[in-house]
Structure formats: structure tokens, C-alpha cells
């Protein structure tokens, strides 16, 4: 009998667990009639479309009412940064409506996705959550200071980027290849430090920093730094090189005016810091980005500085939330800096073509080691 009773206890435990789940705080009331006044957000999911009735909601509990009008089984997701699942509802059969209730405590950029057929990345759309449900006033102030601090830093970089690019552009237009070559990595330094900000505008980054083999819409030309790099190092200046130079300058000025009004969130800062390191790993340590000039280490250094700039702005918040993370970040940034110093030649760096496989391996290791704590920053500042 003892055996029976032990197993019976287990059954009771399972029932208890179910009941507890049903009763405790893990449940969420539908948010109809909340502060937003909008009630559930209707989502119409078809086989090839995903219409979300509202692209914005206040922080807190958000309810999506997902109706599958298609013929395939579908799923609906709300993703946070880095595709973290905030909430998901599976098994929405054709003709059915199912609700997703998610708790989103932090304002910021999110992504909605329908996955007809339950495969792939889904049909995605940006979704903005406004305000912040749980943060104290103090924290909000500190985060606001972080973003304004970073914005100030970005502005200062652009103020250097504009004249440096102008000098580079002037040299190209004057046909002074040697000066232009010398200025190329210098001007790019300021660009590479703030590239995530430019990427947040979407269309500007491909124009300024696109590669020859990037996919482009028909009729869109290969422009920007790398086009001029190719002219300077490989093809020789072309008939349209001066026009390309002017175009670059115009795009940089466009970036300048747009940056003046851009609003960045702490999460964007943190992700930007990580993206810059990813860029190093995929573009610089591989020699992909500056394939004609081989000045990749200049960009490498600039990306790391940009990452450090974003992390530094968030530092007060990081120290508040996780006092152990800051020292690790300091140590790893210092390690990457020290490593790069070994490759310094005068004001610049060794060319990519002069690096050995062992050099590249050490760089990749140092950047990986740095990327690990940097990737934690987003989670820490939003926790």
C-alpha cells in the first residue's frame, strides 16, 4: 500500500500544480478597457499577410486577438530584441481566433510575426510599446540620461565625420589619389563608431557603406565609401568618381540632419554596442569590409570604440542593476585595446593582408570574449 499512496501523492501534486497555475499570478486578465482604452488588438492572419490593427500599445499587459483567415495552421509571436519571445500562441487552426496575452513591462521596439505553416521567420512588422509599466522615476531618469549622453557623443562624432569626409571627398575630386587613400580610413573611423545609429534609418547605411556585391534594387547604384575605395585602390579614378564623392557627402549630411532628431532607446544603445562587435567579427576580422584598401583594423578599432561609447553611456544603469558586469566589461575592452595596440603602425594599423592566421585567431577570441558581457547589457538595463 505504501507504494500506492506515494504515487497517489504524485497525482495530487500534479493536480495541485495545475490548480496553482490556474489560481496564482501566472494568469493574466484580458486587457480590455485598460488605460489604452483599445481592448485587444485584432490580428488578421492569412496565408500571406499579417494585419495587426495597432502598431503601438502602452506597456503592461497587451492582448492580441489573432484570427486565422488563411488555410494553414498559423502561429503568432511577439518578439523583443534579439528575437526574444515575449509571447506566442501556437496552433491557431484555420477559421479560429485565439488570444495572446503578454506582459510587456518596458517600452521600446518589438516585432510581431505571424507564421503561416509554422515555419520560417514569419511575416513580421514592427510594434512599439510606449511608456514603462514598472520602472521607478529614478530609473527612468537614469535611462534618459544614458540616451541623451549617448546622443551627445554621436553628435560629436558626426561633427568630426562631416569635415573629415569633406577632406576625403575634396581629395578625390582633385584627383589626389595618395591624399584620398590616406584620408579614407580616417574619415571612416567616425562613421564606423556610430554605424548602428545610421543603420536605424535603414536606407542610409547601404548608400554610405554598401559593398559592391550587396543586393540592390534595379537601378540603384553601388555608392559610398567602398565604391570610392575601389576606384582609388583598384580601378583608378573614374569619370563618375567626383559625382560619387558628392553623393557620399550629401548622404553624410543627410545622416547629420536625421541624427539631430533621432530618439534612441536604452535597448537600442545596448544592441548597437553588440552589433558593432558582431560587425568586427563578420566584416573586419574576415577582411570583408575593406577588401580593396585592407584598412580593416582602423574600422575594427572604431567599431570597438563605438561599442564602448554606447556601453559607457549606460554604465550608471549597469552598475545599479548588476555591479559585477561593469568590471568584466572594463577588463575585456582593455584586452581588445591592448591587442590592437600590438598592430599599431604610426597613426594607423597594419594592413589586413599583413596579418597571419594566428593574428586573426587571437583577434576573434578577444572580440568573442568581449561580446559575451556586452550581449548581457540589453538584458541588464531592461531588467
Amino acid at each position: 500500500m505504501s507504494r500506492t499512496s506515494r504515487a497517489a501523492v504524485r497525482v495530487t501534486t500534479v493536480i495541485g500544480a495545475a490548480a496553482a497555475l490556474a489560481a496564482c499570478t501566472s494568469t493574466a486578465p484580458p486587457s480590455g478597457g485598460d488605460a489604452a482604452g483599445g481592448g485587444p488588438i485584432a490580428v488578421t492572419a492569412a496565408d500571406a499577410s499579417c494585419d495587426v490593427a495597432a502598431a503601438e500599445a502602452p506597456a503592461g499587459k497587451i492582448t492580441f486577438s489573432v484570427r486565422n483567415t488563411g488555410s494553414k495552421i498559423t502561429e503568432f509571436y511577439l518578439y523583443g530584441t534579439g528575437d526574444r519571445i515575449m509571447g506566442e500562441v501556437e496552433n491557431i487552426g484555420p477559421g479560429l481566433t485565439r488570444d495572446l496575452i503578454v506582459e510587456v513591462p518596458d517600452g521600446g521596439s518589438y516585432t510581431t510575426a505571424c507564421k503561416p505553416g509554422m515555419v520560417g521567420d514569419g511575416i513580421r512588422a514592427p510594434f512599439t510599446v510606449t511608456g514603462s509599466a514598472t520602472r521607478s522615476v529614478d530609473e527612468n531618469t537614469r535611462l534618459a540620461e544614458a540616451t541623451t549622453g549617448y546622443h551627445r557623443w554621436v553628435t560629436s562624432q558626426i561633427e568630426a565625420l562631416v569635415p573629415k569626409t569633406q577632406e576625403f571627398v575634396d581629395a578625390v575630386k582633385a584627383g589626389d589619389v595618395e591624399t584620398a587613400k590616406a584620408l579614407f580610413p580616417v574619415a571612416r573611423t567616425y562613421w564606423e563608431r556610430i554605424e548602428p545609429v545610421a543603420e536605424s534609418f535603414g536606407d542610409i547605411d547601404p548608400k554610405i557603406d554598401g559593398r559592391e556585391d550587396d543586393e540592390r534594387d534595379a537601378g540603384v547604384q553601388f555608392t559610398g565609401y567602398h565604391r570610392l575605395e575601389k576606384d582609388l585602390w583598384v580601378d583608378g579614378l573614374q569619370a563618375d568618381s567626383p559625382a560619387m564623392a558628392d553623393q557620399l557627402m550629401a548622404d553624410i549630411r543627410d545622416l547629420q540632419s536625421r541624427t539631430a532628431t533621432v530618439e534612441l532607446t536604452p535597448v537600442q544603445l545596448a544592441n548597437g554596442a553588440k552589433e558593432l562587435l558582431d560587425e568586427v567579427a563578420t566584416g573586419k576580422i574576415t577582411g570583408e569590409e575593406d577588401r580593396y584598401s585592407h584598412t580593416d583594423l582602423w574600422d575594427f578599432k572604431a567599431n570597438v570604440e563605438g561599442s564602448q561609447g554606447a556601453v559607457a553611456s549606460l554604465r550608471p544603469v549597469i552598475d545599479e542593476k548588476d555591479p559585477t558586469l561593469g568590471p568584466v566589461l572594463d577588463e575585456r575592452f582593455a584586452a581588445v585595446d591592448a591587442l590592437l595596440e600590438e598592430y599599431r603602425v604610426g597613426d594607423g594599423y597594419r594592413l589586413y593582408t599583413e596579418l597571419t592566421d594566428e593574428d586573426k585567431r587571437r583577434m576573434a577570441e578577444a572580440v568573442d570574449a568581449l561580446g559575451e558581457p556586452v550581449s548581457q547589457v540589453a538584458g541588464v538595463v531592461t531588467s
Partner: protein
Amino acid sequence: MLGNALIGLREGLEAGLVVSILVAFLVRTDRRSELPKVWLGVGIAIVISAGVTIALALAQQQLTFEAQETFGGILSIVAVGFVTWMIFWMRRAARSISAELRGRLEGALAMGPAAVVVMAALAVGREGLETALFFFTAARAAGETAQPLIGFSLGIAAAILLAYLIYRGAISLNLGRFFTVTGVLLIFVAAGILAYGMHDLQEAGIVPGLTTLAFDVSAVIPPDSWHGTLLKGIFNFSPQTTVAEAIVWVAYVAVVLPLFLRPQRTRAATPTT
């Protein structure tokens, strides 16, 4: 209609397979008297799942996504524990059968009656909440269109039929092969449930690495195809398998399968040196 039928088929198979092998086992070892305990376990699972779903609906509440995934994930992992225990219990049964007279299973083999209930309850219950929720949604939509409900019911019916066929196939085997075949089948089923539980925990954010895929064959085996549904329903195979899922699957099979298949030493055959 087809989509909803596939959901029913998948959920039904996930629940029905373990139950059908459990029933086959009890029947094959002349323990029909314990069958009511299986149905009791199934009943408990259905009542709890339906009860929780209806209670939440009445209270106009809904489980949050994390709670649902955590619940499903933990139940799956507990279910794996029970199925593993059943696998080795069957192995022991096979040994005594070859050692003694066929069909004479004595007290040493007694499976705790409550264990039968719990195992059946877990097999059905781990997917019960999701299925009940789906059924409830389909029923609510029935005023507008009965298609989803009909499709889902057809799918469940097909799953029950398939589970029955598996049961028939299993009991038609001779006793020696019965234990090996069902045991090996259960090992792969359990490994699949374990991987699935891991996936739930990853979705709930308890275990990281949801987007770190070991492989993605969803182009070849779309999850909404009939073969994708069968693979998912029987082996919990996910065309997009994360590294963590793959690791627990391989680890489970690598440990349990050799243990299960290691040579049985019967009293008569024990070599003496």
C-alpha cells in the same frame, strides 16, 4: 479543415501513443484487470485540462505564455521519467518471462496501481491543456463556423484509430519481440518528449538558446504536412531542432538504448567460470 484535423491528429497521437503501448503491455502480460486504472488516469487528465480551461474562461483569465510553457515543459520531463521507468520495468518483465514460464508473471512484477494511473494521466495531461484550449476555441467559433470543430474531431478520431492500430500491431508480436519492439519505440518516443519539454522551457525563457538551431529541415518536412504531423505526433520530431533539444535527445538515447538492449542474463544462460 485539413489544418485543424492535423492539429487534432498531432495532439491526439502525442497523448495516445504512450497510452496504447501501456494498454498493449497490460494486455500482453495478462493484466487486463488493471486497464480501468489506465482509463482512470486518462479521465483525470481530461477532467483537469478541461476544468482548468473552463475555469479560466469563466474567470475571463488566461494563463500567461510563460506559465503555459513552463507547465508543459515540466510535465513533459516528468512524463519522460515515468516512461523510462516503464521501459526498464518492461525489460525486467521480459527477463522473468524468458527465465520462467511464459505468461506467468508473478508478484515481483506488480506495477504499483497508482503508477499506472499517473503514467496514463501524464501521457495525456502534458498536452491536455493546449488541446483543451484549442478545443474550447474551436467550440466557441462553432456558432460561426463548425468547420474547425469538425476538422479537429476528425483529427482526434484518426489519432485514436492510429493508436489502436499500433496497439493491435504490438499485441500481435510474439512476447519476446513485443518487449524489444515496444521498448525501443518507447525510448525514441521518450527522447522526443524530453526534447519537446526542453523546447517548452526554452520558449518560456528558463533555458536559453531558442534560436540556436542544430538543424532546420522545415523546407523538406513542413510541420503542417501530414508526414510532419505524424513525425511530430509520434516522435515529437521538430523540423527546427535547437542545439539544446538535440543534446538531450542524443544523450537520452545514447544512455537508455544500450542499457535497454544490453544482453539479458537469464538464470539458465548465466555463464559460470
